[in-house]
């Protein structure tokens, strides 16, 4: 019964992590001599997440892969976990800690890719407004910064990003209000997985679908539907399934003493991908295959 346990700790409850859950499951299937689980903190806050990890360590977990809520400043807490288990990071890195490796995307790159989508869809320039859950979160900041960098020198401008604290009602109302407040807006960016579907719905309600360029992140079904329909220009998808699947296998190997999978710089970047109209079907099929549904 005492199989070594590996835990995948996410930063907050969101459908985004369902793919990672599938990845954990697949890895578990291939490695029955480990116990693998994915853990959601009750809230997206440092204190709650830190407590969860400490309890897991008490419960005897051997390896932790974490999407830290606020990696920059969680250094000490993460080091504490890292000193008692094999610690890996995912989703956003914490390079200053004693973590073994980071496996995930580069959020700055993802922002750059969002800029690519915008440039392609609006060769004559335009005015963008962004929407995001937690304005203060690292991944949000990096994506926004990446996009701004990518848009430098073009006639496209990201003028404002509105936050909603992961309240979907506010997320949608923010889009509605933006349409009123900035009649000249020509493009909208949904930085978090649920922002793009809210943009899609608000535009549909306002009869503006197709008139405003939508740049998306992640692969919410509505987002993918909109891309396929042509009303969303394209979306930048991350690969949480791969993070989890490859990550768990890597961690298991590492604990067995096989450190060959860890690169010298400790970074295993699983690139984000732009999914446009033509790629949707293939991508959706692969999602389905991964989740085993």
């Amino acid at each position: 019964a005492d199989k070594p346990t590996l835990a995948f700790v996410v930063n907050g409850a969101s459908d985004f992590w369902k793919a990672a859950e599938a990845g954990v499951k697949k890895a578990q299937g291939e490695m029955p001599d480990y116990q693998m689980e994915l853990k959601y903190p009750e809230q997206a806050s440092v204190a709650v997440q830190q407590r969860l990890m400490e309890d897991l360590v008490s419960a005897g977990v051997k390896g932790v892969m974490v999407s830290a809520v606020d990696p920059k400043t969680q250094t000490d807490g993460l080091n504490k976990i890292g000193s008692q288990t094999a610690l890996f990071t995912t989703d956003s890195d914490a390079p200053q800690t004693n973590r073994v490796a980071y496996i995930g995307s580069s959020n700055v790159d993802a922002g750059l890719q969002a800029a690519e989508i915008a440039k392609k869809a609006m060769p004559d320039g335009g005015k963008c407004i962004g929407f995001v859950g937690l304005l203060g979160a690292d991944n949000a900041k990096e994506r926004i910064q990446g996009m701004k960098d990518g848009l430098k020198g073009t006639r496209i401008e990201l003028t404002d990003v509105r936050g909603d604290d992961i309240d979907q009602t506010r997320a949608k109302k923010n889009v509605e209000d933006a349409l009123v407040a900035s009649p000249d807006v020509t493009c909208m960016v949904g930085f978090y997985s649920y922002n793009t579907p809210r943009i899609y719905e608000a535009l549909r309600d306002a009869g503006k679908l197709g008139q405003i360029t939508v740049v998306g992140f992640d692969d919410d079904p509505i987002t993918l539907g909109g891309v396929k329909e042509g009303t969303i220009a394209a979306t930048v998808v991350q690969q949480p399934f791969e993070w989890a699947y490859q990550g768990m296998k890597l961690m298991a190997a590492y604990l067995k003493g096989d450190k060959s999978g860890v690169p010298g710089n400790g970074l295993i970047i699983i690139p984000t991908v732009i999914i446009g109209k033509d790629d949707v079907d293939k991508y959706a099929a692969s999602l389905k295959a991964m989740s085993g549904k």
Partner: protein
Amino acid sequence: MIKKDLGLLLLIVVVGIVVAIINPRFLLPINLANTANLIGLFGILSIGQAFVIITGGIELSVGSLVALLGVLFVDFIAVQDMSWMLALPLILALGAVIGAVHGWLITRLNLQPFVVTLCGLLIYRGAARFYTADGTAGFAFGQNFPDLEFLTAGRFYGVPNTFIALVIIAVVMWVMLHRSVFGRYLYAIGKNEEAARYSGIRTGCMVMSAYVICGLLTALSAIYFAMYTRSISPASHGQFYELYAIAAAVLGGFSLRGGEGSIVGVVLGTVLLQELQNLVNLLGIPSSLNFAVMGGVILIGVLIDQQWHAIRAKRRLVSAARQTETRHSNESSLPVVANQD
């Protein structure tokens, strides 16, 4: 009462004018309609809360219920393929039952409303998250329910149907609270439950009804909210909505001690809160200040109200004193006359 409501209305209009001057787009029909829509959603929730507050109680589980019932509704029709004509009454009934359980715990087992509904707040959110295994409940792309969508998210001559629903509900509830025997009983219970019981009123039953009404209206607005966002992450959906509802009631003149407040007041309170949210976005105020603006305005509103009352009371006192003083000096000759008798 009516004066208080007028004051609130005035505040709403003044704020509206100021915002419209700074950004005239505030008055665009589309903006008004969008805001009216949310007034509808939150207004229904707040009226439910008001019924409980009138009895001197409180219902803290509202936000979690919006999440739980929303998740169930979406799951029933989007995943379980239940007809929405069946799912809708089912969810409403569930809301009523939960309200009844709260009322039962409070009136029969004598638990404190704050405690019961605080536990509800925790339990229902947990249940909602467990139900979706911390995932999201939402519709698939292109999944459509035209009738339901018209009712919940549609417009009628440009007026959102949710707002129309609020108006209808407000009128019905106004009659119920201000013109029916039931409403009178609720006020009596809120003012002095024991005296109400000694007058032969079935106080337990009445208080229970208030919680049932709250559960019912919360369920209705949960459905509306679900159809508005069309996707629900139970970890965060509806979080703090109980505070919105309580804040609307307090702004509208309700006392948390019970026995005070009017339906017009709570609706106006909701209008003000939504106007403020709209203003933050329209005037380009940082989103982070959203809550602070709300808190600040409630505090100022309550303070003005309180000061206004205090000043009026003081003025009454001073004028009373002056009156008696003149009477006093007029009368001062009288005893002399009386003595001469």
